[in-house]
């Protein structure tokens, strides 16, 4: 923006605001640069949109105020503290209200980080080539560890988080704590020694390696080759819970399980007793239900089978009974019928016999006359005075012959 001066005769005069704007315009044309210095007077507040600090030259104490958006600062995840050496990438600008020069920061790197990072990346590639990070090497964590080894610093937070979580979830858990230095030049050897000694203890089924959040430098021992190899070769499964979510020290890659925080590690190594009880109760309920269902199903099948058996038997019985009733009736009618038919036959024959009876002839007035026990058909041979027998329809008589006619 062009700044227009007032004219007093041949003198050009600028307003303060106009001057500041002019300087700001000039500064805006300067390139973005890397500047090395020490962080001091770091001021970060959740309510502020920006984070402020003063970048100080460690050699002669020269200072420049600096700021960057809070969100960008948090995204870097550096955990910066006053006095730390940094490289700052930014450009100068004028805070127009106060006429103060300040550094607008785009990004910050901890000094020397680049060299460390490169070394870690080289080690990571070498260890990966050795197969230390292979998924096939990961062992399953025991569901109910007899004893849990905990390797941690003697500072409270990480140790307390693991112990509290484990005890709250599974009160019967037994934990063996091995304290060690977790930062500084002697930390790596200490961690390896603690890990090896705790893994050798009886009944240790899993080891948790825990350390709270810290600066990049603080976490360096957990990327040390000795530590990473000790984790990979540990005789029991190892849970690595080092730093915060965004940190990935190499021991995380070699461990059998990785937890983002010590609390999460506690959840990984023991089951939740209350949940376990709930699961058991649900299993018990569903077991009882399925047994009852199976029982009812079988009972229904039996009941239906029994019903149809009974119906079948009843039908067969009724059919047989009907047949018997009909047989009985025919049995009873048969002989009576036979007797009646025979009687009719006999009676017909009897009637014919009666019709032929000689007595029927006598009934008509004839008589049978016998002499000397012979039936008489002629008077010849008879003499007067001879006795004869006369048979009539009713009764008979004896007589004497009076005379004989030819």
């Amino acid at each position, binding site marked *: 923006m062009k700044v227009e001066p007032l004219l007093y005769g041949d003198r050009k005069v600028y307003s303060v605001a106009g001057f500041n704007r002019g300087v700001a315009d000039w500064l805006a044309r300067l390139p973005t640069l890397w500047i090395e210095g020490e962080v001091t007077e770091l001021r970060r507040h959740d309510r502020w949109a920006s984070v402020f600090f003063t970048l100080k030259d460690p050699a002669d104490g020269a200072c420049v105020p600096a700021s960057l958006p809070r969100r960008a600062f948090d995204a870097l995840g550096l955990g910066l503290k006053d006095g730390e050496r940094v490289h700052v990438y930014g450009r100068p600008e004028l805070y127009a209200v106060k006429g103060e020069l300040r550094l607008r920061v785009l990004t910050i790197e901890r000094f020397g980080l680049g060299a460390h990072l490169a070394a870690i990346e080289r080690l990571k590639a070498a260890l990966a080539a050795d197969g230390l990070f292979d998924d096939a090497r990961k062992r399953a964590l025991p569901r109910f560890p007899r004893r849990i080894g905990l390797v941690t610093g003697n500072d409270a937070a990480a140790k307390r988080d693991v112990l509290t979580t484990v005890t709250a979830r599974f009160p019967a858990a037994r934990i063996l704590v091995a304290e060690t230095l977790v930062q500084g030049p002697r930390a790596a050897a200490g961690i390896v020694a603690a890990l090896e000694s705790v893994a050798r203890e009886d009944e240790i089924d899993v080891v948790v390696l825990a350390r709270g959040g810290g600066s990049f430098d603080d976490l360096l021992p957990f990327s040390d080759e000795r530590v990473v190899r000790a984790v990979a070769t540990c005789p029991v499964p190892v849970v690595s819970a080092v730093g915060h979510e965004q940190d990935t020290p190499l021991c995380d890659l070699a461990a059998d399980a990785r937890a983002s925080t010590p609390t999460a590690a506690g959840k990984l190594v023991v089951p939740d007793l209350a949940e376990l009880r709930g699961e058991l109760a649900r299993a018990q309920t569903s077991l009882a239900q399925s047994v009852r269902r199976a029982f009812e199903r079988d009972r229904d099948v039996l009941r239906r089978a029994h019903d149809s058996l009974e119906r079948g038997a*009843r039908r067969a019985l009724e059919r047989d009974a009907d047949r018997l009733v009909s047989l009985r009736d025919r049995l009873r009618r048969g002989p009576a019928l036979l007797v009646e038919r025979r009687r009719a036959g006999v009676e017909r*024959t009897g009637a014919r016999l009666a019709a032929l009876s000689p007595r029927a002839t006598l009934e008509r007035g004839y008589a049978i006359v016998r002499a000397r026990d012979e039936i008489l058909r002629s008077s010849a041979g008879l003499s007067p005075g001879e006795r004869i027998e006369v048979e009539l329809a009713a009764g008979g008589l004896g007589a004497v012959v009076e005379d004989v006619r030819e």
Partner: protein
Amino acid sequence: MTELSFEAAQKELEGIVERLERGQPSLDEAIALWERGEELLRLCLARLDAAHGKIEELAQRAESATPFSEPDR
């Protein structure tokens, strides 16, 4: 005579009746046949009466029994 079965008695009776109807037997013979016929007739009727009585008795006995009671449920 009581050893004679109903069928044999009936057959003999029918034979006698047929002979009487068909032939001219002598009167003595006819009378003897007729007497025999009467005897056979009585025998047959007695046998039929006995059979009838037996059937009635058995039927009555069967009637008083209950051979087809419903099975218990």
